[in-house]
Every structure is written in structure tokens, then in C-alpha cells.
């Protein structure tokens, strides 16, 4: 079952919704504006009644897998349950109705929330200050690198390179490059952890920072983190923490204590703000004292119990987003932290680690485990053992979809062939983990007996595997002017005349 596009459902006979009249005297745009300033024909928006719109979107919603209905073990994405209380909190008129340019006196509650959230995040990751401005994890990474660049520049220290492990998220090298740095890759050793020898050989007086995730993307804790920090700091470089994997150790240890100077956090992973089908998220960055002068402006400051926005920060890297960040997401994350408390957050991380290790154990003989455990909050398996049957990680992923599970992250990290990266999170029951393991066992058994059946999956979803190669070819043809079909948007069949002029 698929759903037509709103544009295909559109009916010219549908009246526009009833809206207020102006009820005052005044000109119309065409009375006062020159005709060349005006739109020549109305935009081609669809025309549907409200019941048609609601049915259209309800049908579309039913085509999605989501945490609300499915186990979603997408490695590195921390797809845990999003408490509905968070939504109620963010919708309070006292938050949702605030204009960002109201006087500070009239938004003391909002500033207080930001202040308290900052303090809580400082306590959780072990830093001195936090900026809440970045809108997403990648945005936070880039913000941190801008601060690190400003720090070195303030000391007239010309550092041009950022070191990134080969197992890192793609956003790390991209953020470094967009911050003006040359990216140098550091290799992982056979045990899946960063190679100290390779790190040693890459560190130089040109190194501005090492970007590291700990536990790394293989779900393994970098045991030698204290040595790594010492090596990095000895060269005058800074240590940056990619907070994608923060869910592994809240209350167990802190990046600040490990020696990290800048730490980004994903509120949409660890702190349960919903992923929204791909945003909005929030990517606050915590820093140690040395980097505080470079924080984006404004910061929230408290003086005599009164909260103010401090825009006068001469060494600041400037502003990375309009206003104060994704405030609605900050409300959700603060609500979650308040409800969980220090005890609840610690328990959450312990449960996440337990779930991952338990699930890893259940499937360790079905898939290859390229690295020894224990793991932290996620593990990376490999479908390389199914290669002889012609079955790949992608086939396993699609077969899981047919069994009502969202698929783990596949083909990442790049250092593991046929990678299947599983992050169960603490909010899943043992029964769910057991049933997922059972599905993996069935799929692996099927790979041995009937691999073709796996190539044909998914069969139970609205569409089967989509031919992305042909789609890319069609896009190329459009972009090169060889085709009228834009592929990236709907376009009215040319038989339909355009709507009448304004």
C-alpha cells in the first residue's frame, strides 16, 4: 500500500479554509505595490479539505516504523523511549508562547531553565560551562572546533590539523574541514581501539585537536584514555569529545575527568528529546575553563539571583544559531533530567550497558564478533560469516524490517566489513531483546538454507527494496538537462494547465 502525493490528491474545487477578514480599512498589495514586485501566478500548493489532509497524513504515518511501535536498535543513534511528559512540558504556554525578543525580566523562568540545564550537563560530563546554542550534534562538533581554533589563535599558536580516528562518525572530519582544519586520520588497532603508536606518529606541533568518541563507535571503551589525553596535551593540542555515546556512562565516569577539553552532547540521544524523523535535535557543547572565553554569545549568567543574557563576550567565536538554540528541546531534556535524577540517569546507563552485552551474548555465535567484549552501550557485529552464502549485512537489515524490527546501523563503522551496529538502549525489555535475538537466529539459518529469500526482503512493507541506482541516474539526467523529470520534487504533468494568474 502506498499513498498518493498531496499534489496528486489536490482538487481545484476545494475552497480555501475560512480565515479572518481584515476588518479594517487599508490598501491591498496590488493597490500600492508595483506590478513587477508581485507574484505573477499563485504558488502551486495543493488544495485539499481538512479531512482529506488528516487522512493523507495518517496514512503516511502508518508507513513509518518508530520507537512508539518498533524496537529501533539503530547503533550510535540511541533510540530510547521518548517520555510523553517531555512533550507536555515543551507545550506549556509559558514556554511555547515566548517571543525570543521579550525583555529579560519577562523570561526569567526560561533563562532559569537554561541555567539549570547547563549546571546539570556540567555535572554529568564534568565540564565548567556549556553552550546550549548548537541545533544538532554536528553543529555542536563544529562549534567546539571553532572554539578550539580561537583558543590556539589567541595564543598565536598556528595549528592546522585535526586528528580523527578511522572509526569516527563522518560528521567529525566534515566538521573539522568546515572549521578550516586539515583532517589527519588515526588508525584503529586490532583490538578496535585507537592505535597509540599511530597516534604518536600523527601528533605534531601542528595538531590542534584529537576528536574522539569514548566508548568508540565499536562500543568499546578506550582503556588508555588517560595516556591518550596526556599525549595530546603534551603536544599543546586539545582533546575533543564526540558525545554520541554518552548514554554508556552517565554516573559511571565523565569525559571531563578523562581529560577532554570540549564535549558535545546530543540531547536527542541521551536525554530523550524525540528524533522527529531527523530533527530537530540539540547539540550543546561543554568546555573546560580554558575554552570558556570563546563560548558562543550570548551566555546565560546569574547575578544576584537575576538571570541575564550576556552578549558582551569579546573573545567569543560569535553566534552559531539565531536566538538561544532549540529552546523547546532544552525544555524536554531538562524535564527528563529532573524526572530521572542523578540516580535514574546512572541506572539508565548501567541498564543500557547490560542490555547491549546481553544481546551481544545472545547472537555472538550467529554473527561474527570482530572484537572481544565486554562492550559498553552498543556492539558491532559483522555479517561477514554469511558472505559464503551470498548474504550481506543489508540483507539481514531488510529481513529484520520484515520481522517488525527497525534495522541496526549497517556498514558503519567503516573499519568493520559488513558491520551491523546494534544499540538496544535501556528502555527495552528483556523479552524484546530475546525476540530480536531470535529473529537474528532465524535470519542466519535462512541465509544457510534459502539465501534468495533474504534477497527478496522486505516483502511485508509498503514497498520492496527501492532501486536507488536508477533513481540516481534519473537525477543525473535531470541535472544535465536530458530529462524533464526532476525526481527530487513532484511536477505537474504537462497536460494540466497551470493555475490562473493572480
Amino acid at each position, binding site marked *: 500500500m*502506498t*499513498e498518493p502525493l498531496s499534489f496528486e490528491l489536490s482538487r481545484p474545487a476545494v475552497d480555501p479554509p475560512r480565515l479572518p477578514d481584515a476588518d479594517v480599512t487599508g490598501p491591498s498589495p496590488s493597490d500600492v505595490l508595483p506590478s513587477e514586485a508581485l507574484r505573477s501566478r499563485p504558488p502551486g500548493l495543493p488544495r485539499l479539505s481538512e479531512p482529506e489532509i488528516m487522512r493523507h497524513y495518517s496514512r503516511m504515518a502508518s508507513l513509518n516504523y518508530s520507537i512508539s511501535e518498533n524496537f529501533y536498535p539503530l547503533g550510535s543513534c540511541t533510540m530510547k523511549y521518548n517520555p510523553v511528559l517531555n512533550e507536555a512540558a515543551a507545550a506549556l504556554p509559558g514556554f511555547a508562547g515566548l517571543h*525570543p525578543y521579550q525583555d529579560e525580566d519577562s523570561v526569567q523562568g526560561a533563562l532559569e531553565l537554561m541555567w539549570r540545564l547547563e549546571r546539570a550537563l556540567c555535572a554529568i560530563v564534568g565540564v565548567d560551562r556549556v553552550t546550549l546554542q548548537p541545533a544538532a550534534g554536528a553543529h555542536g562538533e563544529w562549534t567546539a572546533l571553532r572554539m578550539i581554533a580561537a583558543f590556539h589563535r589567541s595564543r598565536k599558536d598556528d595549528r592546522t590539523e585535526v586528528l580523527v580516528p578511522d572509526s569516527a562518525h563522518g560528521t567529525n572530519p566534515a566538521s573539522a574541514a568546515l572549521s578550516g582544519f586539515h583532517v589527519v586520520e588515526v588508525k584503529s588497532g586490532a583490538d578496535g581501539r585507537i592505535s597509540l603508536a599511530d597516534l604518536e606518529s600523527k601528533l605534531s606541533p601542528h595538531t590542534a585537536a584529537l576528536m574522539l568518541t569514548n566508548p568508540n563507535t565499536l562500543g568499546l571503551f578506550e582503556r588508555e584514555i588517560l595516556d591518550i589525553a596526556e599525549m595530546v596535551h603534551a603536544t599543546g593540542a586539545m582533546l575533543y569529545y564526540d558525545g554520541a555515546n554518552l548514554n554508556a556512562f552517565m554516573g559511571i565516569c565523565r569525559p571531563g575527568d578523562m581529560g577532554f577539553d570540549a564535549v558535545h552532547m546530543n540531547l536527542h540521544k541521551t536525554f530523550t528529546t524525540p528524533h*522527529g524523523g531527523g530533527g530537530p535535535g540539540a547539540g550543546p557543547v561543554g568546555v573546560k575553563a580554558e575554552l570558556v572565553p570563546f563560548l558562543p554569545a550570548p551566555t546565560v549568567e546569574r547575578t544576584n539571583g537575576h538571570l541575564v543574557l550576556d552578549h558582551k563576550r569579546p573573545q567569543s567565536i560569535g553566534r552559531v544559531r539565531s536566538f538561544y538554540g532549540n529552546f523547546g528541546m532544552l525544555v524536554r531534556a531538562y524535564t527528563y533530567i529532573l524526572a530521572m535524577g542523578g540516580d535514574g540517569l546512572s541506572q539508565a546507563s548501567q541498564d543500557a550497558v547490560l542490555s547491549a552485552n546481553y544481546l551481544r551474548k545472545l547472537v555472538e555465535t550467529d554473527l561474527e564478533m570482530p572484537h572481544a567484549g565486554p562492550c559498553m552501550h552498543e556492539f558491532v557485529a559483522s555479517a561477514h560469516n554469511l558472505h559464503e552464502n551470498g548474504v550481506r549485512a543489508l540483507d539481514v537489515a531488510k529481513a529484520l524490517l520484515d520481522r517488525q524490527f527497525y534495522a541496526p546501523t549497517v556498514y558503519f563503522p567503516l573499519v568493520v566489513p559488513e558491520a551491523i551496529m546494534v544499540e538496544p538502549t535501556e528502555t527495552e525489555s528483556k523479552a524484546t531483546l530475546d525476540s530480536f535475538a531470535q529473529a537474528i537466529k532465524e535470519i542466519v539459518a535462512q541465509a544457510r538454507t534459502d539465501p534468495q529469500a533474504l534477497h527478496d526482503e522486505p516483502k511485508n512493507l509498503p514497498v520492496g527494496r527501492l532501486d536507488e541506482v536508477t533513481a540516481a541516474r534519473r537525477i543525473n539526467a535531470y541535472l544535465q538537462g536530458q530529462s524533464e523529470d526532476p*525526481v527530487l520534487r513532484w511536477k505537474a504533468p504537462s497536460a494540466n494547465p497551470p493555475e490562473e494568474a493572480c
Partner: protein
Amino acid sequence: MLETLGVRSMNDLLVDIPQSLRLESLQLPNGLSEFETMAQVAALAGRNRVFADRLTFRGGGVYRRFIPAAVAAVTSKPEFYTAYTPYQAEASQGTLQAIFEYQTLIAELTGLDVSNASLYDGATAVAEAAMMAHVHNGRNEVLVSGYVHPEYVQVLRAFGDGRGIKVRKDGEPNKKTAAVIFQQPDFLGLLTDPRALTAAAHDVGALAIACVDPISLAILAPPGEYGADIAVGEGQQLGLAPSFGGPHVGFIACDKELVRKLPGRLVGTAHDAQGRRGFVLALAAREQHIRREKATSNICTNHSLCALAAAVYLTYMGPYGLRQVAEVSFKRAHNLAQRLAALPGWEPAFPERQFLNEFPVRVPKAPAVLRKLARKGILGGLDVSRWFRELKGVVTFTCTEVNDAGALDELVEALAS
């Protein structure tokens, strides 16, 4: 579970963490019941002052608009808000199709070929567009023309710093200029001459980047009509609450020549073996998870749920509903502008310039006037002198369809008293 793992305690699973790093506990209070949590959060919300929609005349990039109930009814469906970036297309067709419809709506509105799946906000959209121009023609300077939102320019500068791109305010474009960036209507609400600005950019081989108000496009010529290469803007007015500035949504659309340089996600159509149409993430080779340090941008996710809200809003309004909203706002703002100009000492700041529904007025003792309005429950206009020294005493007022005729009377009476 520990038994299955053959370990005695959690500590056996945490052996890789050096003992010196282990914490006893977090320095945070213990957890609360739902009831207590909500009481505390609601107490914070209660310490904020919320002005009635109808008595809010402040804009400056965030506006009060009528939001149809359909928007929240759709965005609060957990199938949408608890899903993630649609990596597995077959199990994410709802999100993918919604983004595809959003892309088409933005392309229609801006009159350009292709829109991406959304960006964080208007400010980062401006910055990303400038980066596209820099990559496209290899030039290292962007020219910001006129009163572009000051915070957008600040974000542009921060982005530019990282890539060695200079941001110049005003003056003429030249052969070093990667792009001319202008806002229509500008930050003060005034109409610029986008045709002339676009032509000036093209004359020196620069791109024209139009930062536009989406509702205005129901009335004004869209960027595609006057030849701008990239259109960007803030989509908050399309069904999103002010929320103290976010989350909102940035949009970006461009000419097809520039599509390969677009940042962020793009959704396109594809077909399965049975010939059924579906939707997939397209042109991923531009993106960070494939290209790493050579990606067009580091953006990973977008603001999907906000883009969904915008799509529902635009579909609900349709072409004529949107025009009605824009025209009502226009008429009321012009009515108000005339009445404010009649107040003693008040005068239009730029009487020769046209506007839509936001306009600058020179106000005697502006801070005191705004404080007086606040005491009467009215969120008056925005004092823009905090950003522009030359605009001392200039306040921009905004009217939309939520400021009814009675609200306009209340504002004028409060000012006259």
C-alpha cells in the same frame, strides 16, 4: 541477564574503565515522580510572561500566526516524531514522502527548481547558502546588502571564519564577490529591489541569495521569478510556535545547476522491483557519512518534524488561504502604520519605502513607550537600535491575521493615553 553473561555484577562489564575514573554518583538530586516533575517545570513556565497573540506586535524574525489545529495533530503522531532519519527507506516511507512533499512545496513557493529537506533555522540557511556560493565559484567574499537580520549576519560571520570567507556589509559587488545576500522584505520589514540586486550580482559573476519570508511569497514575486540562484529563509511562520526562538526550520532552494552543492538531506523518488513508487534519500554522495571531510556540509539531520509542520500548514492553507493570510496581515499593518504615524512625535522611519506587514517607526522615548505597553499586556514593537546605532528610536511593528481590529484599537489607545 547477568547470569546469561556469566558475570556477577555490573562492575564486571565495566572493567575497561580505569578505576581512577569511576564515579560514586552524579552530583544531581534524585529523580522525581511525574507529578512532581511537572509541578517544577510548570513553576518555571509560570515565571515567564506570555503576551496574548492578538496583543503581540513584535516580530524581528519570529511571528505570531494562526496555527491550524491540524498541524499539531499531525506532528504529535508518534509515528512521525519518534522515528529517525529514514536510513531504511522501506520502513520510513511516511517520513520520506512528507519530506518529498515539503521539498515540492518550498520549490513551488520560491519558484526555484529544488529544495532540500530543511536546515536548522534561517540564520544557518543563509550561512549554508553562502558556503554553496563559495564552493561554486571559488570566491572568498560575500556581500550582505541592506538590513539583513543581524543575527543571521552574525551566524554567517561565524561560519565564514571557519572557511576563510569574508563578510562585507554594503557597497558594490566585484569580481571577488561569491554572492550577494539580501533579505526581502528586509529586517525592518521594508521591500528591497531584488531584481536590481540579482542583476548586480550576476553582472560580476556572483550568485544572488535571496533570504525571503515564506508568507510574503503568496504576494511577492518569488526568487525564481527574478532570477535569484538560491532562496533561503526561516519557516517559523509556517505552523511553528515562537518557543523562545526554536526549534524552527530553515529552508533552502536553488537552481538545478547548484543542486550538487546543496547541504543536507534530499529525498527523491525511486521504484521497487514491482514498479511501485517510493521515496529514498538521494544524492547522498554530497554528504558527510559518505564524503567525510570532503562533504558539502557537516549537517547530518535536518529539522524534519518542523518541516512536516510547514508542509501541513501549507497544504492546509493552499494557494488562496496563504494569500488571504498575507493580505489580511498587509491591510492591517498598513492601517496600523497610518494610525501610529498620526501619534504626536511619531513618524515613519523610511516613508519612501514600501512594506508588507512589518514596518519601522521613529518613536519618541521608545524604551519608555515599550515598557508602558508591556504594563498594559501588550508586547509592542521591536527596538532595533540595539543592533543598528543609526536607527536610534526606531521600532518595528508587526501585524498578522492574529492581531484583530480590536487589538489594533487597544494598541493605539494605550499609546495615546
